[in-house]
C-alpha cells in the first residue's frame, strides 16, 4: 500500500456495474498452495492502460458494463479494452487513450458496443493492499477488491494534477487497437494428453466452429459444438497451465483462463497461446470461435 499521508479520494462509486474488480498482471509463485494466477483477463488491453500513463503493472479497474463513478478530484485516467459506450457527463468519449477528468464529473460505462471488458487506470494506481504480491482480485479466494455502490476509491498519487491545457493526451496508435468483432481463431500448441486424441478427433477439433456459452467467466470459457472424444476419461490430477483446453466426458472444450483451478483431472488436448486468450476474453456468449494448430518452434 502506498503512503497514507498523501492519499486522495479519486472516485465515489455511484453504481458498481455487473462485476468491477481491481486487477493487475496476476499473482505468480503461489500456485503450489492452490492460489490461482488471477489478473486482468485481457492482459493486452490492461498493459496499454498502464503504458498510456507511463507506468508499469500498477493496477486498474476491470470494468464490465454498468459502472458509474463520480470523480472527487481532478484526475488523469486511461481507458482501454472494450467499448462500453464510455461517457463523461453524458458525452461519449474515445477510448484507448488518456483523459483529464474534472472534479465532480460523472464517468459511466453504459452498454456493450464491442468487447466485454474495459480497463480504467489512474496514475499511481488505486490504493488497495497487495496480497501475495499482487493487487488482483479472486472472489472465490476472498482476495482483492470488488467494487460496491458507495465505495470510495483512493488514488495512490497525492500530487496535484497539472493544469489540463498543458497536459498532453496519449493515444494508442490505431494499428495496435484490436478489433473484437473480427472472427477469432485461437492458436493452439498441442501438448499434455494430445496423444490420447486420435487423428480423427483432432481433425474434428480443428475443423469445427465452437460457440461461447453463457457458462464462461474469469475461470474459463465453456464452448459448445462438435464433441471431441479422448481415449481416456480422466487422468491423475495435474497442474493446469493458462489457456489449457480441457475436454471433459461430454466432449465440449473448456478453455481455462486467469482464475482456473490449479490442478484438475480432465484430459487436455493442448494450450491456447496467451495473446489469443486475451482476445477470447473480449468475446461474449454466442460468439463463434475456431482453433488452429501452430508449431511451437516458431515462437522460440
Amino acid at each position: 500500500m502506498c503512503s497514507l499521508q498523501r492519499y486522495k479520494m479519486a472516485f465515489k462509486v455511484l453504481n458498481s456495474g455487473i462485476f468491477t474488480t481491481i486487477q493487475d498482471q496476476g499473482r505468480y509463485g503461489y500456485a503450489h498452495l492452490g492460489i490461482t494466477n488471477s489478473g486482468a483477463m485481457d492482459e493486452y488491453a490492461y498493459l496499454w492502460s498502464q503504458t498510456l500513463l507511463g507506468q508499469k503493472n500498477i493496477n486498474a479497474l476491470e470494468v464490465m458494463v454498468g459502472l458509474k463513478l463520480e470523480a472527487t478530484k481532478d484526475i488523469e485516467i486511461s481507458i482501454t479494452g472494450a467499448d462500453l459506450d464510455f461517457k463523461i457527463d453524458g458525452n461519449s468519449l474515445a477510448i484507448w487513450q488518456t483523459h483529464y477528468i474534472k472534479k465532480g464529473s460523472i464517468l459511466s460505462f453504459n452498454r456493450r458496443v464491442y468487447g466485454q471488458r474495459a480497463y480504467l487506470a489512474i496514475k499511481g494506481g488505486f490504493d488497495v493492499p497487495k496480497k501475495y504480491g499482487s493487487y488482483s482480485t479472486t472472489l472465490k479466494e476472498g482476495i482483492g477488491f470488488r467494487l460496491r455502490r458507495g465505495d470510495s476509491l483512493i488514488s495512490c498519487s497525492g500530487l496535484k494534477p497539472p493544469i489540463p491545457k498543458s497536459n498532453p493526451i496519449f493515444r494508442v496508435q490505431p494499428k495496435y487497437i484490436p478489433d473484437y468483432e473480427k472472427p477469432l481463431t485461437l492458436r493452439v500448441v498441442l501438448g499434455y494428453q494430445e496423444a490420447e486424441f486420435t487423428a480423427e478427433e483432432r481433425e474434428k477439433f480443428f475443423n469445427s466452429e465452437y460457440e461461447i456459452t453463457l457458462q464462461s467467466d474469469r475461470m474459463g470459457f465453456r464452448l459448445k459444438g462438435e464433441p471431441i472424444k479422448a481415449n481416456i476419461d480422466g487422468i491423475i490430477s495435474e497442474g493446469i497451465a493458462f489457456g489449457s483446453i480441457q475436454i471433459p466426458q461430454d466432449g465440449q472444450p473448456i478453455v481455462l483462463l486467469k482464475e482456473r483451478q490449479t490442478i484438475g483431472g480432465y484430459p487436455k488436448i493442448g494450450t491456447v497461446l496467451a495473446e489469443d486468450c486475451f482476445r477470447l476474453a473480449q468475446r461474449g456468449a454466442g460468439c463463434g470461435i475456431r482453433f488452429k494448430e501452430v508449431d511451437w518452434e516458431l515462437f522460440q
Partner: protein
Amino acid sequence: MIIKRVSLNSVIVYFKQDISETVLNQVQALNTLLQKLKGIVDIVPSYCSVLVTYDRGIYNYKSIKEVLNSFDMGRFDFIEQELHNATECSIKSNLQVIKIPTDYSKNLDLERVANHNNLTIEEVITLHTQQVYRVYAIGFMVGFAYLAQVDPKIATPRLTTPRAKIPKGSVAIADTQTAIYPQDSAGGWNIIGSTEFNAFEQFSIGDYVQFTKV
C-alpha cells in the same frame, strides 16, 4: 521422468503415473529444487507430475528441458534419497508430523462410513487417527490438501449428491483420501469430524500429517 511441452512458457514433468510414496518423494524433491531456481514463475506439484511455468526471457523449451534433465541425472536421485532419509528420521522423532486435533463428534457421515465398512464408529476413528498421511496434492481450493492413503478398511466413496455447503474445518474422507476443508465450500466428501486447525497455507507437497482425537 518424462518432460512434455504444455505451452510457450510451461512444461510438465511426469513421473511414473502411479499414486505411491516413491513417486511422491520424486515430486517433492523436484519441487524443492525448483523453488530455489531463478527464472521459474510458478510450480504446481501434484500426485505424479510437476507443472513448471518459466520466464521466457530466461528459458526456452530446450534450455528448461536441459535444466530439468540435469536434475534427473545427478543431484536429483541424491536429493530424493536425502529427503527420504530425513523424513524417515523425522517420523521417528515425531518432529515434522503436522498434528490435526479433530472433534469426531461434529460429523455428518461417520455412521455412513462405519456402516459402509461394517465397523463401529470407534473403530473408524481409531483407523483414521493411527495412520500418518502425506500431502499428495494441493488444489480444488486454496489450502485444500489431498492426504493419503487412509486404511482401505475405512475407504468410502463420495456422496452421490454433493452437499451445497460444507463448513470450514470439516475433516472428510473420499475413497482412500482424506482432507480438511480450509473454508466453507460445496463438496461430496464424507464428513467424519471437525477441526479448529487453520488449513489455509499450512501444507506443502510431501508433508506428513496425522489426526488426533479431542
